[in-house]
């Protein structure tokens, strides 16, 4: 039943994708007019004219935010929206073009950024003016890259018969949804709520800083290319954040933060957010009373939020940037994913992984990964990436991989990269999900088999981009447990994906926040708890921090 519902969704979305006409707003009109002019007239002596031009505009709108610490409000900003622009130009032709190449002077991924502008004026003239400048810069960059790429290819042995075209053209589609203003929330009401939540921090003497914030935010996206592919979409959400610093009973200072994305700030969602405050304070309490950990090799049960980050780091990132950038330098494209061959065994059997770019929410939680049309103007398709532990499909762009298959609508830009293979909403589905009690039994049984006294449960993944503490819980064979600090995972590799022994039956969506990204994160992972057969945990060296010079007031 589930699959049928999903397919129906795809069909509906596909219909919508093909039916739209170009909206008559300043964003689309400015992009259309500048593309038309540039395609017709942009030509530098001795340089080919553009073969392809694409623009993306992103408008971020913030509502009035509310921030409080220990019951006292912080100052806030009242500001209008921020409009940012990205532009890229390709010269040459489908067989040989200027993209997919990074010049030696740069670290390869850095050489592959779209030209961008921030804080554009919100007027037709202002947007066009910026697009004009960005197009010129992108054209100059493409001209230089084209020369460098040709010189590079001349220096290499190539088999013309088998050589891949640079681009396999794909059908251009469009998607348009109405863009409404960000809902206005009662700022006083939000302030009252954050004060009420943050004042609870006063009850815990070991908490040195505790801040709760609520920020409504909306991201509107407008895309148009010279082949008439376009989209217009919008997503609004309310971000609730908790930030704290504690000094645990052993004297270690630790920062901890959590984020919750909500579709709105209704009474129901406020109540949900309040339960997160409870959970957050419980986590802090656990940190305070936690005992110092010891090195460990054995099974680890990843709770859904930790599992989400684990899947992102070990699986999602290896399904991205699959087509490596050619480069005339020594620079290695470290962002290139490893899972680029269909049939490759990458996970334990019994797990299916989907990428579902057409989903815009999960259990009422908005998903920033909603992508009806990709950044090459191609309809995004739902993909079954992994089945029975093997790769069954890959995200593809118009720049073909070695198997020469056409795009499936997974070319996405980021502020750091022109379009490359990228996932959006990743769903992990175990074939035989276990109820919580059964999962814990399996976990402890495995510990027994290995003659271990206890195993570890990881509640929060220590993210590289946030200051989250890893939240470890040591679970003894009799079911009793205690929280532990001072441990980190050592030597994590994709091997752990193949070591998944079992999975739970209650998935949770994790929004993968990235540095520099504003608004609802564009990548999400929905996964249940995962039991990993073996992980190596090592102690984090360090001595307790100094006692405060002056007692806390």
């Amino acid at each position, binding site marked *: 039943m589930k699959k049928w519902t999903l397919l129906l969704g795809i069909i509906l979305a596909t219909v919508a994708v093909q039916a739209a006409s170009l909206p008559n707003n300043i964003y689309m009109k400015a992009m259309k007019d*500048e593309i038309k002019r540039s395609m017709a007239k942009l030509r530098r002596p001795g340089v080919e004219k553009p073969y392809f031009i694409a623009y993306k505009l992103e408008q971020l709108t913030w509502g009035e935010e509310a921030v409080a*610490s220990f019951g006292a409000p912080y100052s806030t900003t009242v500001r209008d929206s921020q409009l940012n622009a990205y532009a890229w130009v390709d010269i040459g032709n489908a067989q040989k073009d200027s993209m997919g190449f990074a010049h030696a002077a740069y670290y390869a991924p850095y050489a592959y950024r779209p030209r961008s502008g921030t804080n554009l004026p919100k007027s037709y*003239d202002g947007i066009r*003016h910026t697009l004009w400048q960005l197009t010129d810069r992108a054209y100059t960059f493409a001209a230089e890259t084209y020369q460098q790429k040709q010189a590079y290819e001349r220096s290499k042995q190539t088999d013309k018969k088998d050589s891949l075209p640079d681009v396999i053209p794909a059908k251009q589609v469009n998607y348009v949804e109405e863009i409404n203003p960000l809902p206005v929330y009662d700022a006083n009401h939000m302030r009252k709520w954050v004060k009420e939540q943050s004042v609870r921090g006063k009850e815990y003497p070991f908490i040195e800083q505790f801040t709760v914030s609520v920020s409504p935010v909306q991201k509107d996206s407008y895309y148009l290319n010279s082949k008439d592919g376009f989209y217009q979409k919008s997503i609004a959400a309310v971000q609730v954040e908790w930030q704290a610093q504690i000094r645990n009973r052993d004297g270690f200072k630790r920062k901890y933060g959590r984020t919750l994305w909500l579709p709105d700030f209704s009474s129901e969602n406020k109540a949900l957010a309040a339960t997160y405050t409870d959970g957050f304070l419980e986590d802090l309490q656990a940190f305070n009373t936690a005992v110092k950990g010891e090195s460990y090799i054995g099974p680890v049960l990843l709770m859904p939020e930790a599992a989400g980050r684990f899947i992102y780091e070990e699986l999602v990132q290896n399904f991205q940037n699959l087509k490596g950038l050619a480069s005339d330098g020594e620079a290695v494209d470290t962002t290139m994913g490893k899972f680029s061959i269909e049939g490759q065994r990458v996970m334990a059997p019994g797990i299916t992984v989907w990428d579902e770019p057409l989903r815009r929410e999960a259990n009422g939680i908005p998903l920033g990964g909603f992508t009806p049309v990709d950044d090459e103007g191609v309809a995004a398709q739902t993909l079954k990436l992994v089945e029975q532990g093997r790769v069954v499909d890959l995200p593809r762009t118009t720049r073909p991989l070695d198997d020469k298959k056409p795009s499936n609508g997974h070319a996405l830009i980021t502020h750091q990269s022109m379009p490359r293979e990228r996932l959006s909403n990743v769903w992990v589905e175990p074939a035989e999900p276990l109820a919580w009690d059964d999962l814990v039994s399996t976990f402890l049984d495995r510990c027994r088999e290995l003659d271990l006294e206890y195993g570890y449960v990881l509640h929060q993944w220590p993210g590289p981009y946030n200051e989250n503490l890893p939240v470890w819980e040591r679970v003894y064979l009799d079911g009793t447990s205690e929280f532990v600090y001072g441990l980190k995972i050592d030597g994590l590799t994709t091997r752990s994906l193949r070591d998944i022994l079992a999975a739970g039956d209650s998935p949770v969506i994790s929004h993968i926040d990235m540095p520099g990204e504003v608004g609802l994160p564009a990548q999400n992972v929905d996964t249940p708890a995962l039991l990993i057969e073996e992980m190596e945990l090592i102690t984090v060296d360090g001595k307790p921090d100094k006692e405060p010079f002056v007692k806390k007031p």
Partner: protein
Amino acid sequence: MKKYLCLLPFIVTSFVAYAQQNCDIESQQPVQLLSAELKRSIKALKRQKPPIYYVAYTYNEYERGEIDVQDQGVSYRGIHNNRILQVQARAGSTRMDNTRTLKKDRTYYALRAGEMPEIEGDGKAFIMAVWRQTQLAAEEAQQDFNRVRADAQTASDRTDDSPDFVFPPKETFCLEEPALTFDLDALEKLLLAASSLTHDKAFVLDSSFSFSYVTGYQYFVDSVGTRLKMPQRLARLMYSVEGKTADGSKLVRSQTYDVLEQAQLPDETQLLADVTQSIAELQALTQAPEAEPVTVPAILKNKAMAVFVHEVLGHRVEGHRQKEDSFGKTFTDKVGQQVVSPLLSIVDDATLASFNQIPLRGFYYYDDEGVKARPVILVKDGILQGFLMSSSPIKGFSKSNGHGRGDEGKRPVARMGNTRVIASETVPYEQLEQQLLTEIKRQNKPYGFIIEDLSGGFTLTETNYPQTFKLTPTLVYRIYPDGQKEVVRGADMVGTPLVSFNEIMAAADDYDVFNGSCGAESGWVPVSGIAPSVLLRKLEIEKTGKAESKPPVLPPPSTGGK
């Protein structure tokens, strides 16, 4: 006689600035909370090893508003209310503390600064935040002091071994002034109207029109007992129009208006006329010939002279640059000696609130170390008198003279405020131009220069580099012996300070104000310069570097190039 008339206005202004304390410092809630927390903690802090022997809190509570407009559209409009606490903690002793510049390692000028909650009820959340910031600042100060101690053990001897700190005197001051208020909707309309003037100009490649203001208070509390409350008030409308020649030379015309109330801003007619003039100047520059390297007589117009003095002399008389061995110390041993033309005296007077009704951005009551601002005579009749001092003593100058300044989150060092040039003899500007023509003929030069406007530049003060300056004029005229003027582009002013300042032959009576922001080790601080136009016997001009890329292939879309 003229000299005294010039000095009189700022003596009066200084008097006004200090005569109007109108509130009770002890009843100010931020001062009460900060003082109480400092009193509670200072004994314990002094007992630490190394001791935290001095603590100062700077608490800024202000509103900042901004509107940015380009191409007839608003790119940003927002109002932010800020509450920032900055903690200066000194570890060690006045003899050697954590703020000493390291010889063998990098010196950090950052200060612990963080956002603060509103003061509500008993202010407990505010106090918690103060306590936390203090702890962090004290820990950082101790770490820095350990680096200083390690550096001192192996680095070469310091030429000037003066102590690192002198305690500032205890002060109290409390002044409240009405908050600045502006009609932002009307200002947005005004900026949009001005922006529309660039609409069909193919040579205007970029433009920006903006208005910003800051209004609020700064509180200062330290462990010596100083308690201050001072208004923070700045507002500025500015615009710039930019172009590029076919060969890649970047061209800019810009204008700023510093005010303290909306009525002081130019009305629409005036602003549009000014923008029109700037656009015309930009167009003239795009067609202007490029300047050739040459040494000829020149006039530095008043605002350009103010920037020249700021860059070339001002930075070199900042106290800490006389102490640290990494600096060139051009003037360190020249107190009592002639360093500039005897025609000139130079005073830095941060107590001067305005000049000719123009608010001065370099005005303040107390510096960022809690020391009272005062006029400091740097040069009298060409002879160097002293330096701008923070609370870091130097040989022969043991106390601050109220010039310890720094941006939010930056440790204060000696900086300029309002740097004023006073000429002992002046002539009307027209006469100065005549003197220039005479000098061109006398030197048998084909032409001279009038430096109308100067955007800024840089001056090398570190000992590893030659003690030179390079300034970037944005509007320069070549003037021929027959008086004809021709705008030229791509002319940079270069030279060395000791030579250049002695080339000043005469000055005009057209004093004017340059209001700007100055960036250095302690961040960006608002500054002003006041100067007359001056005639230089000779000025060296060299070509300006060009941008990396050519102008865009297509004309701007607003010109109709579809």
